[in-house]
């Protein structure tokens, strides 16, 4: 177990190294010039060159990357070009909001998705099943900004149940979390349904019925733990998809998370922030997958970590 964890952590470090290199390289070859953004339109060529030299952006790519990496290993993610604040500080102040939103969204996703999937599997082929699967298809294909604006318009503007945007109370959390939850639930419901349909055909379900167990016990105690395994692996992967969606939803709802931070940084070519947010997201994805792999053997004793 300890050996397994150590090996996975080394793997994770290598993945993050790869992500940092690719992102850094992409930002380097990008035609947008961060120095122009800092100096402003009216700056002279001399000022521009000064700033470039100051930031070390005149050095060859490999030197720049080595410097960045050297600092990163010591926990220094650099300073924002424009805000002059430590990137680590910026991310630290934004991360709790994003984690809160993520927790809320995953909760909504699972409750909605798993319930829909289980109900559809139990009523397989019936009208209820078909309705749920069409619904899931709609949620999978709907664009994020459409769903967020729609919910915003109905529940915040028209009904006034929830605030239009911002951060601070539970009421603020509901709409962005539900938006992300609805968008993600389609995947989960489809996966849960097919997994559940397979499990309900299994021999051990027939055994459970032959024992005279109630339907509720058969579904919840015998079928569910077996059916949920592939879904757990998916939660790990889903965090990556989630990080993409959060940029749009945080912007629409004015949620002060790292998605918004990234969005602003991209517009201004603020490379240290982009790098920081990318690495934190990559770390979250790697961690999510590791956690999913660690949880699986708790449910299925046949899975051995090695």
């Amino acid at each position, binding site marked *: 177990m300890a*050996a397994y964890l*150590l*090996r996975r952590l080394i793997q994770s470090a290598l993945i993050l190294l790869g992500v940092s290199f690719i992102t850094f390289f992409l930002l380097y070859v990008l035609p947008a010039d961060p120095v122009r953004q800092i100096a402003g339109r009216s700056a002279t060529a001399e000022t521009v060159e000064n700033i470039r030299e100051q930031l070390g952006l005149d050095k060859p790519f490999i030197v720049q990357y080595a410097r960045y990496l050297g600092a990163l290993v010591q926990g220094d993610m650099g300073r924002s070009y424009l805000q002059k604040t430590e990137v680590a500080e910026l991310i630290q102040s934004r991360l709790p909001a994003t984690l809160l939103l993520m927790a809320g969204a995953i909760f909504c996703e699972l409750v909605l998705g798993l319930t829909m999937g289980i109900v559809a599997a139990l009523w397989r082929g019936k009208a209820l099943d078909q309705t749920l699967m069409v619904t899931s298809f709609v949620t999978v294909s709907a664009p994020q900004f459409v769903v967020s604006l729609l919910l915003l318009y109905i529940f915040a503007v028209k009904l006034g149940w929830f605030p239009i945007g911002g951060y601070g109370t539970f009421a603020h959390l509901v709409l962005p979390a539900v938006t992300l939850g609805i968008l993600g639930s389609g995947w989960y419901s489809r996966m849960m349904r097919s997994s559940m349909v397979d499990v309900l055909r*299994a*021999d*051990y379900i*027939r*055994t*459970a*019925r*032959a*024992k*005279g*167990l*109630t*339907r509720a*016990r058969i579904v919840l*105690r*015998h079928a569910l*733990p*077996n059916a949920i395994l592939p879904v757990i692996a998916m939660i790990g992967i889903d965090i990556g998809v989630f990080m993409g969606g959060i940029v749009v939803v945080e912007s629409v709802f004015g949620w002060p998370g790292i998605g918004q931070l990234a969005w602003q940084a991209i517009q201004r070519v603020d490379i240290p922030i982009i790098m920081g947010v990318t690495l934190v997201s990559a770390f979250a994805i790697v961690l999510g997958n590791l956690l999913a792999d660690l949880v699986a053997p708790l*449910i*299925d*004793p*046949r899975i051995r970590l*090695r």
Partner: protein
Amino acid sequence: MTLAEAMPTTGAATAPDFVLRVEGLCVFARTEQGLKPLVQDLSFDLRKGETLAIAGESGSGKSITSLAIMGLLPQPAVRVTGGSIRFGGQDLAGLSDPALRTIRGDRIAMIFQEPMTSLNPVMTVGTQLTEAIRAHEPVGRSEARKRAVEALRAVRLSEPERRMGQYPHELSGGMRQRVMIAMALALRPEVLIADEPTTALDVTVQREVLDLLRDLQRDLGTAIILITHDMGVVAEMADRVIVMRQGRQVETATTLDIFARPQADYTQALLAAVPRMGQGAERPPVTTEPVARLTDVVVRYPLRGGLLGGITQNVHAVEHVSFDIRKGETFALVGESGCGKSTIAKALVGLAPHQGRIEIAGQALQGLDAPALKAMRRKVQMVFQDPMAALNPRTKVGDLISEPLVIHGIGDAASQRAKSADLMARVGLETAHLDRYPHEFSGGQRQRICIARALALQPDLIIADESVSALDVSVQARVLELLRALQAEFSVAYLFISHDMAVVDNISDRVGVMYLGQIVELGTRAQIFGNPQHPYTRRLINAVPIPDPLQKRATTSRASSEVPSPLHPPGRQPERVILRDIGAGHLVGTVS
């Protein structure tokens, strides 16, 4: 007093003896082609404490009948459309699911064919046992647990307390089937339905489970409905037999009568097709040159683990195996699951890395480059157990048969097709069916297609790995007949891998008995079956159920026979079996 007056009294006196009475049972399936009958007009009684066998081949409706009694039919596609199932004053066919639930598992229990998949993999044995008890009786957790341990002890599982905390994958197939039996009998049901309870088990384990069922029945007085295709099991276990075919009852009689005086043509044909030991025709010894020779072959698979992925254990699948297969000969390898017989087949076609020397037609397999290995594969072909899995469902059978020719670039399209047609005819299929797909054929026909494909390259050796095990006995008999005829025609050698001693006795020239990766006895068919020397060979032969109810066997030892593990840490070797010739080439193993 007249006879007519006496009749009702006898009827009334015997009636309570019946625990279950099925009358005019009809089960239909709703398919795209309309209603399809699965069981039609089936009637039978089950008496207290008796064992009633329902025997038949696949599609006979025997399993559907058992599911109908349990109320476990895959509704709504399959339903009881007529008749009644009387049990304890109720008609089970008309009961709602909640009402049936109180009977299921409590008064009528069932065990299934596949012990490997019939237990929930994510729940402990203890949980699965106690929940069955608590579903029907108002007992607390600790009381249920106590009774579960008792039930495990009753099925003679070692260390019942420890088993309670184990998961199904930690137990062997035989142990799992014991757990299933414990679960079924914990509540002392009046009726136990056993659907092919030993079909998936090794023959020595089958022996133990059958003995166990018989003992428990004697102690508890449970009436058993035994669903089986195996007439040997019927002869050993049943008091009465119902023979079914295509959903209908063909014949019913006492077991003694069925075997001694089968009335229906189908029953006679079925019994004639059952392979029996000691009936193999005497064949002249084969003295041709060998087509394959194995010398000291070893196959080990490393298990890795730890931080750097080092080898923690080795699976010793095959250990120091030597034998040869001669041209036109049938060499059989027998042994139970995990003994390494299929690994030898893999090594022979170059699919398992091996040490030692394997020669095909005088040329060593090891060290061949890819083109040479490909050329070598022309000489050895395989036929597997499951023909449906071995045939690509989206390819026409004509193309499947000619595919080896295409791969090896033999002939043009026209000649390949002609060859397919020729081979179709040789294996007894219609050449007009070349453009059909595998699913349009029956199981036996599909296996014929596989055989035709194996013959396409005119190999020296065909490896038949459990090739007839999944077939019904009547189909099996015809496929074996075909294999013999093809051998005479093409003088091809067979490596016949099987767990079925009776089939091996019927088809082979020489036999090697394998145990834990090593050959423990090797000799001609007559030597192995007529004069078995190694204790394991004897145990295998003794364990085979004999399709003759008059033949009473000596009670075997009731101790559980778990096979030791083939896993050893690196550097440790399993004990090596040394084969000694006891005369006329009959080799018997002794541990060095």
